[in-house]
Each structure stands twice: as structure tokens, then as C-alpha cells.
């Protein structure tokens, strides 16, 4: 099947190429779970913590690890690949065929996004099996927040790729964006444990809003409209920016 923006042969090829890259598989699919397992092996992480409202740190870290997969997939893996495809003329070469180079961008986003999404059940399963972390009590709300966060992450990655002329820049810019994104997602300090002022500020960032929406859904509530709204607004804004600034060559 082939349309302007999707070509199944291109998608199959990109999936195959992704599977050949051990780095991508490790960082997107396994690293978040590995981090959860390492942190969960520390006894203190399995003791209820009053600052987390009685949750154990390992409980609070499951949504964080889920977000980490999305962040690595969107900000670290995809922009470098896309920028490389433009820099080395792969997009241009494709422009001379009946298939549009947009098909390659779509395929890349689906592969990075798909891998990032796949890392979520792996993390949830590891949390449940190894540390007895309850599965999200509001699964539909959780899935909605997850999908919005994924779109936001891919859109941010596309903006980074649009702004980077070379793969070197894309790597540097991706890493520079990675740390604030990880901080907002709560990798160093879960959002629930942040002081109120800080949590309030972080809640206006895409990954901070995503972390709070995931926490609410994990606890069994429908994610708050504000958090989902912030996430959706970022996604729209970033998508528009990527479409505006992306250059094919």
C-alpha cells in the first residue's frame, strides 16, 4: 500500500533497520525497565514514603520509567535518524521516485513511536511481577495520557530535527533537550515528591503534565483536564512548528 505519507514497503524496511540497531532497542525498549529494576532493588525504594502520599518510591517510578521510554524514543533516537536521512541525501534520492520522502518520515515516526509505546507494557509488567506495583486502575485514561505524551514527544523530536542541519547538531540538541524532559518527567524526583511550586511549574511542560496525568490514571482517577489540555496544546504547537520549519534538504 502506498499513499503520499505512508508506504508499507518503506515502513517494513524501517522496522527491519531498527531491529538491526541494538542501540535503539536497548535505549528505548529495555533501558527504562532496567532503570526501574535497579532502583526497585534498593530496599528503601520498597518502603512506603509519606512525601509520596504513602506510595512506595518504586510505585511512583513506574509512570516515570514509562515516560522515559517515550522521551528517549522521541528526543534521542528519532531526530538523529531523520536529520541523517536529510543530511546524507536519502530523502532527496527518494524524491526522484514515485514515493514521496514524507513516507520515510512517517515510517521513522511509527517505528520510534511504536518502540516507545512497546516499552510501556514491558515496564508495567516488570513493575507488577518484580515489585508488585498495581497496574493502572484507570487503564483508558492511562492509555489516553500515554498516547498524547507519545505524540508530544514525537512532535518535539521532529522540531529538533527541523532545527538541526547535521546529525552532530541533532545529537547535541537531542541530549540537551533530554535532561530537562527527564527532569520534568520525574526521573530525579517524582513529580508527587516535588515542592508544590516546582510541581506547578513542571505541570506546564509536556512531560510534567504527562507525568501528572499518568499518576492520576494509575491511582484510578480520570486524568485531569488541565494536564491533558496542556499536553494536547504542546503537541499541536510542536507539530505546527515542525511542519513550518522542516526542510527536505
Amino acid at each position: 500500500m502506498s499513499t503520499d505519507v505512508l508506504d508499507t514497503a518503506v515502513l517494513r524496511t524501517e522496522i527491519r533497520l531498527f531491529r538491526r540497531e541494538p542501540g535503539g532497542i536497548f535505549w528505548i525498549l529495555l533501558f527504562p525497565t532496567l532503570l526501574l529494576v535497579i532502583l526497585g532493588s534498593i530496599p528503601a525504594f520498597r518502603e512506603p514514603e509519606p512525601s509520596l502520599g504513602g506510595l512506595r518510591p518504586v510505585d511512583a517510578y513506574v509512570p516515570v520509567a514509562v515516560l522515559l521510554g517515550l522521551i528517549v524514543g522521541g528526543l534521542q533516537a528519532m531526530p538523529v535518524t531523520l536529520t541523517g536521512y536529510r543530511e546524507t541525501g536519502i530523502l532527496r534520492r527518494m524524491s526522484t521516485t514515485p514515493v514521496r520522502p514524507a513516507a520515510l518520515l512517517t515510517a521513522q515516526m511509527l517505528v520510534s513511536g511504536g518502540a516507545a509505546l512497546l516499552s510501556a507494557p514491558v515496564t508495567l509488567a516488570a513493575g507488577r511481577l518484580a515489585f508488585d506495583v498495581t497496574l493502572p486502575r484507570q487503564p483508558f485514561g492511562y492509555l489516553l495520557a500515554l498516547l498524547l505524551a507519545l505524540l508530544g514527544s514525537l512532535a518535539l523530536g521532529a522540531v529538533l530535527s527541523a532545527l538541526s542541519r547535521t546529525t552532530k547538531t541533532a545529537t547535541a540538541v537531542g541530549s540537551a533537550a533530554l535532561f530537562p524532559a527527564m527532569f520534568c518527567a520525574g526521573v530525579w524526583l517524582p513529580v508527587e515528591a516535588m515542592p508544590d511550586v516546582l510541581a506547578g511549574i513542571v505541570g506546564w511542560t509536556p512531560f510534567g503534565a504527562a507525568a501528572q496525568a499518568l499518576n492520576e490514571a494509575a491511582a484510578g482517577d480520570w486524568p485531569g483536564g488541565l494536564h491533558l489540555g496542556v499536553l494536547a496544546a504542546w503537541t499541536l504547537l510542536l507539530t505546527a512548528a515542525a511542519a513550518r520549519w522542516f526542510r527536505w534538504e
Partner: protein
Amino acid sequence: MSVIDVTDLRKSYGGRAAVDGVSFTVEEGEIFGILGPNGAGKTTTVECVEGLRVPDAGRVRVTGLDPVADHREVTRVLGAQLQRSELQPGLTVREALELYASFYPHPADWRPLAERLGLAPKLTTRFATLSGGQRQRLFIALALIGDPRIVVLDELTTGLDPRARRDTWELIEDIRAGGVTVLLVTHFMEEAQRLCDRVAVIDQGRVAALDTPAGLIRRSAGATVISFTPSAPLDDHDLTALPELASVRHKDGRVTLSGTDATVDAVLTLLARSRVTAHHLRVTDATLDDAFLDLTEATA
């Protein structure tokens, strides 16, 4: 019947005209060369033909289609090998051929194509580990995989060793024998002289000349070159008085003259009359190289 029509093509980058009024027509089944110094506007011209760039002015038609407005239709009849491009580093030769074949409604069979290009032993090799020559051959294969009526080859043999270059030339002749029209961008004169039916010499964004390679050579001022080492010095006045002389050069006791057949006759008469023996006498036809330098030196 013409398959490519370019009329008064213009394209500027940041106010500087890269292509400044280029016109030419490529007939079906011919090998048409675009020749010119670096930065002359050759690549910009063919990129407009491929639909990769939008002309500022002028008209480009490929089998009657507009490469920009009818881009997809044009990509089905025109295969391109770009001057600089790569593929995904992890893609194998076979995967690249299968993938690109899937883009076309009626692709060529990639197996004989790979065989003909010497890629058969490399089918499972990843793009990143192919040599320069192997990559170049893969890109030729990809240009042909859609079974096009026209192929555009941009600096095809740059970076190839002489042996690989000659093999590639044979391949291009094969391609044409199969009925495909070839638009060839090159800066190798030998390549143009050997392969092209007609050549457009582009200089500073304009067509400086358009003719057969032989026609271009005939046109140039010094079509015949005579060189020898005289046994005794010759009078410079006698030399410069030779008919239809284009140039005289002295170097290490050797005299090199360029002119026409009449110049050759006259210099032989002069030598006999002066009782001077011409050691290591050589009379050669000028090459396309000489014609090219002639055409472009006014502006160089």
C-alpha cells in the same frame, strides 16, 4: 522525437544566477552530455529536469510533462542518479533493490540488473560497507529499476578507477542500446567524447556551445596540433607567418603549433626549405579537452 525540452531556464540562489537562460532539447534514444567547469550550473539544470528544483523562469518538459506539477508521472519515466546521495547505512544491496523496485508500477527485474552491474556477489552487504565504486553501481541500478525511458546520470564516474570507469561506459552504451535516453552530466572530456551523441557546454549558467563532440573539436581554433624538436632553431617570424596558425609554443627546444591541415602542410614545406629535420614529429587531432578549454577560457 524529443523527450526533454528545456527553454530559457533560469534559476538563482540568493541573487546569484546559477542557470541563466539555458535551452536544449534531448532526442529519444540519444546520449546527451552536459559539460562544463565546476559551478557552471550543470547540476542545477538537471535538478530542474528531475523536478528536484523549481525553476525561477523558463519551461522544462519531460516527455511533455512538467517535472514540478506532474512530479509523480515524471518520476515513473525518468530515473536519476544524483551527484551526492546515500542510503540507510544498514540497508543491504538486495533490500535496496527490492524496496526501490516496489515504488514503481512496472519495475525492471532487479536480479539481471544486479548481475549486469556486478552487484550479484554483494546482495547481502550493507550500504555502509560498500566501496565507492559499488555504491555508484548500486545507484545506477536504482536509477534503472523503474524501467525508465530516460536516465539522468550526474557525475557518474567521478571517484571511480580507470578500469571501473571504462566498465561503466560500456554499461551506458548498453543502456542506450536498450532504448533508454541518457542525459549525462560530466566534467571528463574523454567520457563525453566517447559516449555522447551531442554535448551542451555550459559555462557561467549559459550554453556556450551545443554540437556533436566532433563538431565542437572542428569548431575550436586549433583543431590540429603539430609538435617536433627541430635540429636547428627556426626563425620565429617564419613560424608566426604560417597560414591558419592558432598558437605557437616553445618548451625545452620543442615546438608545438596548433592550427589546421593547411598549417601542417606549410610547416612541412618550411622545414624542408630550411633544411631542418623535425625529430619526434607528432601530428594529432585536438581533443574535446582543447575545444572545451577554447570555449570556456574567455570566461575562466
